[in-house]
């Protein structure tokens, strides 16, 4: 098949990197770093090439029969490139950041090995061409992130890891049940932009509704839909780069992305709407949006506050998916990228405060702005983006979601968006105020001198760069190849077969 090598090479890059890193002795850190950066850069280039091809209508894919009737399918379509592009881009930054973050700490071979494996799984999820392949990589992601969550080996980390694995494997089992039942009913369904089930026998509708619930519940664990979100705030004990991976690049996104695939590429948006499953999904998402923000408000630990914020923000994506109509779709899909860029910035910054100053709690941040101006500037930009202040990334999302809700005659979503913006302001603005306006109270909890800049260069530049991206994706939203333009392209292909 033509065009098979590009998706395979993209996957192989991180798999190979992972194997090399596992094989390297612990002390060979310069080789390890070189391999890491090379693989990340190469993968970004491959994904960029593939994105260009997909834009021009070229086909990349591979399909072969693993078991009788079950095929392993990789396929690059527009929505796949949205997720692949996000992970490839943010992975590069996260890798750089992780190299700086873990400098001098033990077990780095293990860490970076699983780190690469995790990103390989994410790319697999993005490029999977049917539910079976998707499930395979989805579980691989669970298994490769577990060692990262428990990396520090403290009792707290182990407890968080246990909770993480129980939640995600449980979710995986439910997902598998849904996949198998759907297979029995409808056979092996390759993802297709307009879905498959439009012409189904009406007698099967109840079963299809039940299967939809199973699939979404299974995926909802990783997407942290309430009440399946419990693992996410606990898992914030993991090192900052892992949090970035969980919250922005890979894990929660895999869940949300799975829901995109199920709604659009299996059921088809028209069919899902006529089946009546979108409205309940919208309610769950709306509830999660508000619940996550409310909980974030009461957290005094910075990373925990950010974690509940993720719960809320990922639900925006699901909310957009459940709004019938291209505008809602665009809003949901574009947030897949926007949330990733903003949240990765916030977690990088939280990591910088923790590593450089020993600050973990919000009320310890007084005066951190003048001490770490670039980090704090990046944090401020991302926080305002999250609140939805124009022209930053989050505003574009909210605008598209709002218009999508009005177009879909679901105006009740607007108050939800407004309330969530208000709550976002309530839990982000006090942090900004502390950073910049409050004077420093005595010494920092545990200050370390890391390099000549305000912190280690590898910790500083990734958040600065992603903060610049937060501005750019909003300011250039209407330019070609912006996330918004790409989401438009995806929606166009989904609604106009």
């Amino acid at each position: 098949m033509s065009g098979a090598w590009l998706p395979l090479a993209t996957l192989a890059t991180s798999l190979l990197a992972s194997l090399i890193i596992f094989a390297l002795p612990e002390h060979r850190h310069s080789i390890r770093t070189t391999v890491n950066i090379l693989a990340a850069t190469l993968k970004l280039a491959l994904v960029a090439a593939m994105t260009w091809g997909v834009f021009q209508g070229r086909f990349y894919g591979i399909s072969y029969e693993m078991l009788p009737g079950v095929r392993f399918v990789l396929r690059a379509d527009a929505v796949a490139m949205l997720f692949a592009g996000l992970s490839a881009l943010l992975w590069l930054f996260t890798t750089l950041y992780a190299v700086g973050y873990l400098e001098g700490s033990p077990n780095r071979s293990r860490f970076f090995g699983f780190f690469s494996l995790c990103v390989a799984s994410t790319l697999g999820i993005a490029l999977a061409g049917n539910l079976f392949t998707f499930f395979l990589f989805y579980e691989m992601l669970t298994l490769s992130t577990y060692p990262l969550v428990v990396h520090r080996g403290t009792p707290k980390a182990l407890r968080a890891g246990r909770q993480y694995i129980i939640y995600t494997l449980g979710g995986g089992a439910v997902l598998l049940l849904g996949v198998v039942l759907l297979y029995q009913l409808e056979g092996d369904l390759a993802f297709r932009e307009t879905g498959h089930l439009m012409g189904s026998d009406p007698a099967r509708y109840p079963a299809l509704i039940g299967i939809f619930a199973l699939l979404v519940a299974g995926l909802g664990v990783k997407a942290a839909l309430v009440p399946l979100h419990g693992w996410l705030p606990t898992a914030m004990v993991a090192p900052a780069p892992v949090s970035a991976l969980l919250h922005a690049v890979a894990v929660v996104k895999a869940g949300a992305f799975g829901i995109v695939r199920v709604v659009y590429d299996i059921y088809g948006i028209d069919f899902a709407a006529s089946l009546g499953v979108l409205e309940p999904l919208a309610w769950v998402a709306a509830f999660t949006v508000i619940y996550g923000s409310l909980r974030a408000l009461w957290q005094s630990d910075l990373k925990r506050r950010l974690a509940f914020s993720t719960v809320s923000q990922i639900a925006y994506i699901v909310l957009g998916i459940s709004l019938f109509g291209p505008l809602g779709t665009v809003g949901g899909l574009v947030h897949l990228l926007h949330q990733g860029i903003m949240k990765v910035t916030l977690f990088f910054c939280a990591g910088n405060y923790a590593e450089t100053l020993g600050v973990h709690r919000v009320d310890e941040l007084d005066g951190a702005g003048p001490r770490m101006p670039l980090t704090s500037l990046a944090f401020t930009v991302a926080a305002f983006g999250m609140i939805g202040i124009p022209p930053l990334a989050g505003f574009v999302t909210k605008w598209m979601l709002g218009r999508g809700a009005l177009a879909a005659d679901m105006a009740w979503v607007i108050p939800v968006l407004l309330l969530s913006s208000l709550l976002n302001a309530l839990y982000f603005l006090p942090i900004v105020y502390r950073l910049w306006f409050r004077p420093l109270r005595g010494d920092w909890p545990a200050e370390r001198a890391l390099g000549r800049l305000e912190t280690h260069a590898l910790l500083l530049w990734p958040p600065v760069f992603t903060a610049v991206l937060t501005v750019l994706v909003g300011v250039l939203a209407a330019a070609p190849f912006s996330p918004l333009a790409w989401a438009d392209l995806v929606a166009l292909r989904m609604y106009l077969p």
Partner: protein
Amino acid sequence: MSWAFSAAVLLPLLAASLVATGSTRFLLWRLLPWLPLPALLLATQVRDASVDIPWLMLGARWQLDTLRSPFLLAASLLWGGAGLYARAVLEGAERERWFLSSWCLALAGNLWLIVAGDAVGFYAGFALMTFAAWGLVVHADSPRALWAGKVYIAMAVLGELALLAGLLLASELAGGSVLLAEMATALGRSQQPGLALGLLLTGFGVKAGLPLLHFWLPLAHPVAPTPASAVLSGAMIKAGLLGWLVVLPLGLTSLPAWGTMVMALGLIALLGAALRGIWTREAKTVLAWSSISQMGLATLMLGAVLVEPALWWLVSGWFGLFVLHHGLAKGALFLSVGLSLPGAPVARGLALLVVALPALSVIGLPLTSGEAVKRWLKDSVSGDLAGAVPWQPWLPHLLSLSTLLTLLLLLRWWWLLRSGDGSTAVATLPWVAWLLLAALSLGLPLYAPILL
């Protein structure tokens, strides 16, 4: 053309980065009065311009027309004069980095919203200005400033949310367009514009000090450093008014119920705020109440236009005159609060008389711009409404009453100014800044006919 607009907005935005180090800060203080210069050139040199930038944000447009030009002119003059004053009194003071960055960002936002022809640009500028100005409000770091800042930011966030919802609804009516002109047209054509109108009136009303949404204003405006009070009360308050003017369907459709309500709110502001202000004990607070009262004039006129659309073509120029008049006079009045008066009794008395001059314009004495503003308003609302508003016959009397109340209010201000402690060392630069704004304000009747 586009570069001239970009320069006007980007110069203060980029200048904010100069706060980073001591030596660039020195430079920034010297640049501060000149930051609005490109905007001033734009306002004076360009009559009508509209530049589309399809790739920017959700499709942006720079726009300058007869409506926006006076806003840009007033804002750039006021920010320039107040910038000179700020340099004189705040350079080297505590938290100067905080002040400088807030100042530059608020300025950039204020200029941006004026020249934005699209809702996203307007909203972005509005938000930038609002959040940055919060930095000016809390600058003193006193319990009073922090409390004012809390009330300010709470009301600002609520205003922003009402605005977001209103703009979304208006954009939906306009078939997804983000251009303000198209939104206004769509609101005019819509059968049920009620919710969108209510949200937009509220969202901008917070900034404009509309009664019931006004209570943050007498707390926040006076507590900022004096030059910041001047731009808050002279320039930024006008952003709410401009918002109404560019997005409401003025001259397109008659909205008697909305119009009457807006007129009533304008009257309440005009009379109520003046009355309330007389009972306050601080010169700057009196001026803040006076701002609410004066904005009532514009609200009243806006309501009249909503009732009688034909009026719009006659009075659209009035808003430009009002903005220049009130912006410059109020700016000068605020700056005079911080001026160091001579200690010798005669010189002191003379100085006090001189600084009272801009107040005469606000009161509306003959030969001042205030008089022109009031006369034009009186003529419009007494002639063209033709009984559409039940209490129309009372309007001229109420306007005369407002003149009396404004007189009392500003006498109160002058009394408070007089009883302030004098200082012997008279600094020149603040006086230069004051003189600039006062001269521009008093000379307005001479040069306004050329501009408007």
